[in-house]
């Protein structure tokens, strides 16, 4: 593949379609700037600031912009809230739609056939693959991202984090907890 992609780059450059100098900044942005730390900040702020939480659930596109870490958010980012009675999970059964702006590029498993096929009819089985077991009376809601709307899960704030700073809270927020295939870390895991 290395050779094939190099040929592609050469042809597109020689044809005048692309400027190779623009490629590295794109790669750098996704490897160093855009990632789950952005979503984690939004979640941590929602955990500590009730008015931000309302704003996030009301219009996540606008709310994430107020964090000042990204200069643009694609339209219709939607935050969905986990509660003791409801667990949300995000999937794209048709391709790989994922909230890039707040989580970065999706992991391989998110784009894989097992996840795309099973999330909608066996979410508890998928959770088991991640080592997560939910109480039997927690309802599961799966959001299939079949359009340009994008979803992020607002997980529940772990117990035992009273008085924590937003920064410290953000260290508990995992990528998977914002997709719905994981839970936030326990306070004991970061102390």
């Amino acid at each position, binding site marked *: *593949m*290395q050779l*094939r*992609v190099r*040929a*592609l*780059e*050469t*042809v*597109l450059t*020689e*044809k*005048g*379609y*692309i*400027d190779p*100098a*623009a*490629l590295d*900044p*794109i*790669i750098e942005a*996704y*490897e160093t700037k855009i990632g789950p730390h952005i979503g984690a900040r939004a979640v941590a702020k929602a955990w500590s600031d009730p008015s931000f939480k309302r704003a996030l659930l009301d219009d996540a596109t606008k709310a994430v912009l107020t964090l000042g870490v*990204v200069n*643009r958010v*694609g*339209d*219709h980012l939607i935050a969905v809230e986990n509660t003791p009675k409801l667990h949300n999970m995000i999937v794209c*059964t*048709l*391709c790989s739609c994922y909230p890039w*702006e707040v989580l*970065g*590029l999706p*992991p*391989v*498993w998110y*784009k894989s*056939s*097992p*996840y*795309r*096929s*099973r999330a*909608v*009819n066996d979410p508890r089985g*998928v959770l088991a*693959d991640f080592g997560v077991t939910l109480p039997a009376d927690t*309802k*599961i*809601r*799966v*959001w*299939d991202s*079949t*359009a*340009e*709307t994008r979803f992020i899960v607002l997980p529940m704030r772990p117990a035992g984090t009273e008085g924590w700073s937003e920064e410290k809270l953000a260290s508990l927020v995992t990528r*998977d907890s914002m997709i719905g295939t994981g839970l936030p870390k326990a306070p004991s895991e970061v102390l």
Partner: protein
Amino acid sequence: MDGVHDMGGMHGFGKVEPEANEPVFHSDWERRLYALYRAMSYTGVWTIDQSRFARERLPPDIYLASSYYKKWELGMEKQLAETGLAGPDELAAGHALRPGKTLKRKLTATEVPNTITRGSSTRPAKAPARFKPGDRVRTKNIHPATHTRLPRYARGRVGVVEALRGCHVFPDTVAIGKGEDPQWLYTVRFEGRELWGESAEPSLQVSIEAFEPYLEPA
């Protein structure tokens, strides 16, 4: 199209296998390919739905056996050939054999920070929305041979409109060069048993994002 990409509910793919401390890219060609795709998309020669449709049209055995970015690479080659932007002979030769076409714009390094998020797909509406939150709707039992975003598992099923998400570019037409034809978009929620029958967990709910032409009153 009823292709292998439409995977919701299929059996036999096995366990989900998360990778601990997964890197953003797994090899240098993935990095380059991803950036090449973004740079080409910036020129305006294709839309996201045309790219999706190109990948969906890969032969099923190739689609299933290829890694994610390999699918992107194959889809991009297909699009370059179909649009006449670059031929398979040129990719095989590793050099341009003919002059390039003139494109609308070219991505430069300084412009990259403004382009790393998705473009907007919302458009002004031509007519009021037909449905409102709370309405019961049935998805149509359609099987177009072309691109659609109504997954097979959710066709001909009764659900409830949960939210109106604005008016968006219609993938079914834009993917085949028939224009944006903007349509209202809804979140439609189904009970698990409506989709999967008695074997579904009773409390499961699944929603899709459904364009208005996919829906009729129920």
